[in-house]
């Protein structure tokens, strides 16, 4: 169900349609699998993920460490190591199939059409290259501008992400900046060439809470300004609660629930999603309230268990859960999919036997 436009692929160079011309969806991921061959076996980090993202919208991908969310982000971009990696499925971006692109073509896409914001700005920025140069690298590569213009653009970019005295700071080195500043620089770099899609991999982990909000606000503002789509990967449901149009919850390499944000919170189906929500401490709770953690550990991705992968940790687990893997199916509204045999109904735990009759007939969603 892709929306192909007539685009030219002349001599290996890909022509990208203008943002406003291209019809949604911007990105379609279909049955993406990514596995790594290691000494101990093949790790199925991403095990069949499908979703789509429209222009200018934000998809939040939420999951614990080990859920595969970072690998997903990199797999979408294609930023994986060359050896011992197996990838299957399709990733269609503005009508182009990314999984079959040659490295030279991928490099055209990276930075210019699709870019990534990394988690730790201290390690993601080259410590011995000036900030300005790290921005202009990208600019001069993808856009046809000279050095002077690139520098001027870099200064403006720094200004727009809220770095004071950008004309000076452009000559600074990363270690001279605070954590929050560095992350802003990263955002500036990622957004330098006005990409259509930004993948933000835990952009605020490791920052002070007060700075986190600023950074997220900044991202949102930039996104709106440039009509940019964003995939926001995080382990913190609270981060995406206000900022994402749609949220996908990942567990053990798969999406276990996906819905528009409000629907997700109002009509949660997956017990795992509910558990994630419960684990967020609330300011309103009286002090001394115990934190609700999810017991147990994520499953082994080399030999995943037979039934539902969340079964060992699910408080409502039944025999059927352990035996067979629940498929992804739609809930009341077609934009809401989940994978559970005994889903929650309006927040209440499922009845003890059999699926509730109020569910729609089981249909596969792509």
């Amino acid at each position, binding site marked *: 169900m892709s929306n192909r436009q007539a685009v030219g692929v002349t001599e290996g160079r890909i022509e990208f349609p203008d943002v406003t011309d291209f019809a949604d969806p911007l990105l379609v991921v279909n049955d993406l699998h990514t596995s*790594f*061959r*290691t000494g*101990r076996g093949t*790790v199925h*980090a991403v095990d069949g993920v499908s979703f789509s993202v429209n222009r200018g919208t934000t998809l939040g991908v939420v999951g614990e*460490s*080990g*859920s*595969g969310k*970072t*690998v997903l982000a*990199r797999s979408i971009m294609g930023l*994986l*190591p060359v*050896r*011992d*990696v197996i990838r299957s499925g399709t990733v269609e971006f503005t009508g182009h199939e990314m999984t079959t692109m040659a490295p030279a073509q991928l490099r055209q896409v990276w930075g210019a059409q699709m870019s990534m914001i990394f*988690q730790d700005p*201290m*390690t993601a920025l080259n*410590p011995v290259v000036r900030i300005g140069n790290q921005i202009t690298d990208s600019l001069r590569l993808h856009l046809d501008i000279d050095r002077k213009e690139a520098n001027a653009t870099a200064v403006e970019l720094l200004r727009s992400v809220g770095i004071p005295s950008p004309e000076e700071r452009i000559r600074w080195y990363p270690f001279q900046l605070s954590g929050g500043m560095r992350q802003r620089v990263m955002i500036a770099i990622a957004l330098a060439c006005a990409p259509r899609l930004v993948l933000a991999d835990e952009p605020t982990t490791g920052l002070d809470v007060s700075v986190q909000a600023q950074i997220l606000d900044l991202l949102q503002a930039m996104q709106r300004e440039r009509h940019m789509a964003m995939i926001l990967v995080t382990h913190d449901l609270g981060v995406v609660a206000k900022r994402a149009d749609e949220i996908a919850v990942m567990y053990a*390499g798969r999406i276990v629930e996906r819905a528009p944000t409000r629907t997700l919170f109002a009509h949660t189906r997956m017990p795992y999603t509910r558990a994630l929500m419960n684990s967020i401490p609330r300011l309103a709770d009286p002090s001394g309230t115990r934190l609700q953690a999810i017991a147990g550990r*994520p499953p*082994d*991705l*080399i030999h995943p268990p037979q039934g539902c992968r969340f079964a060992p940790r699910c408080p409502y687990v039944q025999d059927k859960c352990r035996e067979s893997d629940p498929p992804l199916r739609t809930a009341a509204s077609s934009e809401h999919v989940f994978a559970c045999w005994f889903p929650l109904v309006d927040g209440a735990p499922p009845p003890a036997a059999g699926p509730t009759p109020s569910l729609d007939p089981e249909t596969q969603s792509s």
Partner: protein
Amino acid sequence: MPTEHKVHSPTLGGTLAGTVPGQTPPIVVATALGAPGSPDDILAKRPLGPLFWFALAWVAIVAISAIIANLLPLQAPNFQNYTAINASPSIHHLLGTDDLGRDLLSRIVFGARVSLVVGFAAVGIGLVIGGALGLISGFKGGAFDIAFNAASFVILAFPAIVAVIAIVAFWGQTLTKITVIIGVGTIPIMFRVVRASSLSFANRDFVMAARTLGATSRRIIFREILPNVVPAAVSFGLITVAGVIVLEGSLAFLGLSVALPTPSWGNLIAEGTSNGNLQTNPYIMMWPALAMFLLLLSINLIGDRLRQRFDIREGLL
């Protein structure tokens, strides 16, 4: 270069290449955290490999034969058999003889003693003294550390070769003296390496934890830091052994190693290249050169594999 890297004037004063605390090796992919790096973990934890065992075997052969040299059925190393000058390898003389009729195999086996004794004993001296000082210095810090560190730098600035040449020439050319001289010379190097290692561990949390449990400094040094420092010290020590063997060889070339006719590999090679021996009987030079080459190769290999095993950074110099 790891980014968490404080470089304080790397050659003077502070620690060379600083400390590299907690730079974790590439991800454990099974938990799918962070960046998928190269899954075959190029530098860390490679299997020892067949070469390693060959190297170990060679060193063992050399060592054992040197030790039991007197028991082996060899012609005495200094015995000159004028009927068999420059003989080619044969049953009687497995490696041939030199220009004075001396059995080459015998000379090499006995000569191994010098190389091995000087090599290991000298480094032993350096490790024990320099290592002890470095261990304490890195842990304690303060005036003690500054003083010794500065001293080690000054001593290392002094051209060691000259000192060794001078002392050997003046003092005497016996095996013991040479060993002691070179041994003392390795003290500052060992000091630096052990100190750098000790320093990097002294700041770790587990030391702090031990302290909060009431452990004395001495106990911490021995029970917590020393076991962590040993791998680095041993592997670096091995590499230094190779360096010392080379130094002895060089000295021999200058005529400053054990006095002839006592064989040492350096002596033998020097003999092999003088008096036109290279043209008349290249074997004289060839065999000890080969033996030394293999020994150096083996020691370097062993030291290197051990270093890889324990993930030591070369920046610890």
